Each structure stands twice: as C-alpha cells, then as structure tokens.
C-alpha cells in the first residue's frame, strides 16, 4: 500500500510553519470563525484536526471547495493542534487569513488530503 505516510519531518515542518503564522500572521481558531472567513473569502488555508467530527469535517471541506481554499488535515487531534498553535486549549479547526512570514500556504496548496 503506497500510502502517503506522513513522516516525522514533514509533521515537524508543519508545526514550525504554524508557529510562524501564530507569531507573524493572522488566523482564527474555531469552527464558527472558520466558516465566517470562508464565507467572506478572507481565509487562505484551513487546517482541520483528525478527530474532528466527520459531519463538521465534510461541511468545512465543502465550504472550502466552494471558496477554492486548500484544506490541510492535520496529523494530530484537537489537543495537538491547540498545542501546535501555542494555545492551552483544544483547537479543532483553524483558518489562516494572512500567513505573515510563513510559507505555509505556498508549501501546501490544495492540502494533502
């Protein structure tokens, strides 16, 4: 099975890029704001945790498909995603509005589903 196995290296690099976005860019955390940014076409990349409920995941993916925004399925649950964002709470989905100095959007266009 030639599955696109997420190696440790790429996982770390996503974390690094996310950290840079948190520091220098604009983002929103949480399902309601993610949909809001997708509706007003401000969001540029959406990251979803792996334990996001499947209905919610499908809904975000559908909105992102309509808005032609990439979706990245984070290799970790909402606890890990919250930690990766440097927050002390769980984050199930987040939307990057302005990547700042990070190249997170260029390095994963369309997202690797």
């Amino acid at each position, binding site marked *: 099975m030639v599955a696109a196995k997420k190696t440790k290296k790429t996982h770390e690099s996503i974390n690094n890029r996310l950290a840079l976005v948190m520091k220098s860019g604009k983002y929103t955390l949480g399902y309601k704001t993610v949909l809001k940014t997708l*509706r*007003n*076409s401000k969001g540029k990349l959406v990251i979803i945790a792996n334990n996001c409920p499947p209905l919610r995941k499908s809904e975000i993916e559908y909105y992102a498909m*309509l*808005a*032609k925004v990439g979706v990245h399925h984070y290799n970790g649950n909402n606890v890990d995603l919250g930690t990766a964002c440097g927050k002390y709470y769980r984050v199930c989905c987040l939307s990057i509005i302005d990547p700042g100095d990070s190249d997170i959007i260029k390095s994963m266009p369309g997202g690797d589903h």
Partner: protein
Amino acid sequence: MVKFLKPGKAVVVLQGRYAGRKAVIVRNFDDGTRDRPYGHCLVAGIKKYPAKVVKKDSAKKTAKKSRVKAFVKLVNYRHLMPTRYTLDVDLKDAVAVDSLQSKDQKVTAAKEAKKRLEERFKTGKNRWFFTKLRF
C-alpha cells in the same frame, strides 16, 4: 478565497420555518445593514415543491401538480448551507428588499417569484433545485 455567496447561488435554508427548503440568493448584504448588523441575504425559495408528475396524468392534473409555492425571506448567512448549484433566474426586479415591508407587498413578491420559478420548473432545467431534499 473565492466569493461564492453570490446572487444565483442555490442554498438550503437550515433554520426557521423553511428549514430544509431550497432557495436561491437574490441579493447579498455581506456587511449587513443597520437593522441587521450581520451578513445576510435575500433569498427566494420554494415553500411547496412541485409534485411528481406521472405519464398517465391528464393535462389538467399535470398543471396542478407542477405548481410551486414560493417564499421570500431575509436570512442570515449562518442559517444557510451553500451548494455547488446555481439557478440563474432573474428575480431581481421582482423581489426587492422593500417588498418585505408589508404583508401584501410580500405576497406580491412571492407570487412573482412563484411565477418565475414555475416557468423554470416547466422547462425541465435545474432538476435538482425542484426536488425535495430528503432528511
């Protein structure tokens, strides 16, 4: 990054009396108005879907079954589910925001919308829009 809530987009109303009904966006108010300080849009939707027409129905029965009852409403973006379908029906002159001020204006707007939607249904196009969403 593409704006998709545009006039002509088919949406499904999620909340309220018309929950589960399909509608088409007539006009957007992305930044809201003074009365509604949130993103909302004017939609015209189907209140009562046309019934299934069978080949052995008489012409009178077909006409009766192909009737569409429409509604016009201002809906918050949060209470809509956008779809990938569009319905390019010209409803802009028929349905305007000020047609929601009084009851009889609303009725005439809904009647106009009904007429346009019915003629679109009779052409057989946009079949998805006129089928009831099963849930």
